């Protein structure tokens, strides 16, 4: 494919944690550099906790972000409050950054709709997790259209996996974003696998960023394990969109170090060798090395951070555990703005069934 050279690729920090190119100016903000690290550490620990909670039956199926922390942390940090996130199910890191509470994320995966009824006003307009693959890309275009219609300088950011790039919704959305010059940024978490289907069986496109060419918009690749690279490119794309210059597609090249979800066993379809090799590129260790080398991080900070992170997680798990069961009739109470009289009887019957089952909760 002669064209693959047309797609830019960004990396600042290599696998060894060394600089592989000059850092942009914003990287002089040491607090931000440290914050990005803390974000990744938090989500890695929280993620581990989620898997443990699933294994002990305290939440349901969970989609781990192991290995993809840089993407979520960077996207979350690159957005501003007035932007809107339209995420998919592997966005724990981004959601945490945006302001969704950990106990809300636990409620969601615990099978409780209140897990998307976020209380933090910062995320009041963010979309809930989207399960039907790629459909969120279209919603993001709708959100961005609303911004355009109302002439607001806001940006919709939407995420998806590599598998999602094969689905019509993703491709239709890119096309619309191009032709309507929408303020939307598409971020692909290319973790190389869609459950058991490898990237190579999804598409013959040399890169997933090539999808942008069909839509007349800029597409680029970034090392998805380099949190600074992701932050830089996503932030630029957001500001470009905010300035009315239209949409960007950013393919973050990373790797799913865990199973697809807790319901999956990746050893059925993927070799231990591949997995071991992928660990060498993982984002957290390399960034820690980078910070250490730059003198921005040390053992003491690390220990403080780890303590803090674990405390926050434990506290949030407590809030989750202490959350009283959802109302038995919630399914009807939020079906319509006002429940049509026709359904009043069914609402009662649902209540009866819930009570017959001995109440109900996420536990």
């Amino acid at each position: 494919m002669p064209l693959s050279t047309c797609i830019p690729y960004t990396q600042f920090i290599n696998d060894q944690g060394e600089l592989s190119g000059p850092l942009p100016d914003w990287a002089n903000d040491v607090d931000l550099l440290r914050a990005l690290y803390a974000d990744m550490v938090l989500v890695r620990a929280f993620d581990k906790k989620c898997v443990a909670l699933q294994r002990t039956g305290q939440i349901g199926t969970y989609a781990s972000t192991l290995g993809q922390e840089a993407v979520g942390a960077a996207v979350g940090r690159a957005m501003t409050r007035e932007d809107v996130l339209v995420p998919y199910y592997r966005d724990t890191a981004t959601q945490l950054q945006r302001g969704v509470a950990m106990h809300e994320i636990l409620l969601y995966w615990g099978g409780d709709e209140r897990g998307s009824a976020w209380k933090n006003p910062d995320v009041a307009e963010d979309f809930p997790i989207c399960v039907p693959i790629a459909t969120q890309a279209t919603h993001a275009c709708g959100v961005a259209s609303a911004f355009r219609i109302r002439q607001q300088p806001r940006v919709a950011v939407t995420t998806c996996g590599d598998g999602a790039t094969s689905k019509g919704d993703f491709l239709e959305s890119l096309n619309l974003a191009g032709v309507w010059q929408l303020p939307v940024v598409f971020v692909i978490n290319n973790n190389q696998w869609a459950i058991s289907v490898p990237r190579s069986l999804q598409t013959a496109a040399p890169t997933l960023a090539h999808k942008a060419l069909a839509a007349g918009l800029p597409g680029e690749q970034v090392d998805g394990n380099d949190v600074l690279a992701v932050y830089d490119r996503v932030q630029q794309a957001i500001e470009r969109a905010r300035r009315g210059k239209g949409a960007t597609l950013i393919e973050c090249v990373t790797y799913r170090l865990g199973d697809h979800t807790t319901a999956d066993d990746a050893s059925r379809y993927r070799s231990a060798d591949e997995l071991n090799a992928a660990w060498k590129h993982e984002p957290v260790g390399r960034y820690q090395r980078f910070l250490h080398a730059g003198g921005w991080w040390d053992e003491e900070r690390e220990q403080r951070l780890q303590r803090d992170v674990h405390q926050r997680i434990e506290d949030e798990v407590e809030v989750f555990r202490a959350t009283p069961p959802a109302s038995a009739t919630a399914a009807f109470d939020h079906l319509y703005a006002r429940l049509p009289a026709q359904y009043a009887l069914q609402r009662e019957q649902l209540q009866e069934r819930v009570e017959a089952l001995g109440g109900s909760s996420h536990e």
Partner: protein
Amino acid sequence: MNDSQPISMVEAINLALHRAMQDDPDVVVLGEDIGTNGGVFRATVGLHERFGFRRVMDTPLAESLIAGISVGMAAQGLKPVAEIQFMGFIYAGMEHLISHASRLRSRTRGRLACPMVIRTPHGAGIHAPEHHGESTEALFAHIPGLRVVIPSSPRRAYGLLLAAIADPDPVIFLEPARLYRSVQQPVADDGKALPLDICFTLREGSDLTLLSWGAALKETLDAADLLAQEGIDCEVIDVATLKPLDTDTLVASVTKTGRCVIVQEAARSFGPASEIAAVIQEQALTALRAPVQRVTGFDCVIPYAGQEMAYLPDVRSICAAARRAMQGDLL
């Protein structure tokens, strides 16, 4: 437009769209060929001249996209009114309607809502090509969280469309294409919405209840006239909103008359008439003097234009069913 002058249903729809866009800056209109062209049925004529292309958006050709961006806009508090050019092309958009539009409020426990309307021409009988005569309202009526509304007169089209647009939840608004221009009626442009979620009794009667919706109401009303000549006094009800179904009105009528014929253009099996019949026998079995009859389209693919009229419920079949209902007397 002069209020006292009779207008067609498509003009009434156009009037309602103008009114809604004028009264509420959050109302936006989108779809294929709805801008410069004014819609293939001319329902959106004049909107872009009046409200500009920022609020009147010709989309690329993709129904899933149209449905999906409407969800995104609605979540932002806009009130998108999307046109699907024909009901036969709505299917690509079903994932967004079923999995998102109907659920956004429930999924977020009210944090986000989805006040969108999908307008689309409904039904056969206009001699258009294949896929231009679908009446698959049952597919949407089954989906919790949606509303399904279908007007059968210019006035109800005006009032119900205003109601659909004002409604804080998603509405599938089906416009009987066969009625677009065939009926004329004075419509006051008073901005008044008609109530959703209720049936309209078009004609009172004591012997038998005739239920229908959409274009088939024409044949239903004609049949009521004919039956009256035979001394059969029919009550005729326009169901109008299929979801949620106003079972109270329907059951009350059949409780009074003891007999019911439901006229449905859609394929027979698993159609809306089945739900209505099920509810009536559930709630009014002891009042029934004869089985609830269904006069319907067929369980076959809607024939091409050459034979499509044979697919539609005709006055003859409605009258025959009514006479059968009058013969049975179980009480």
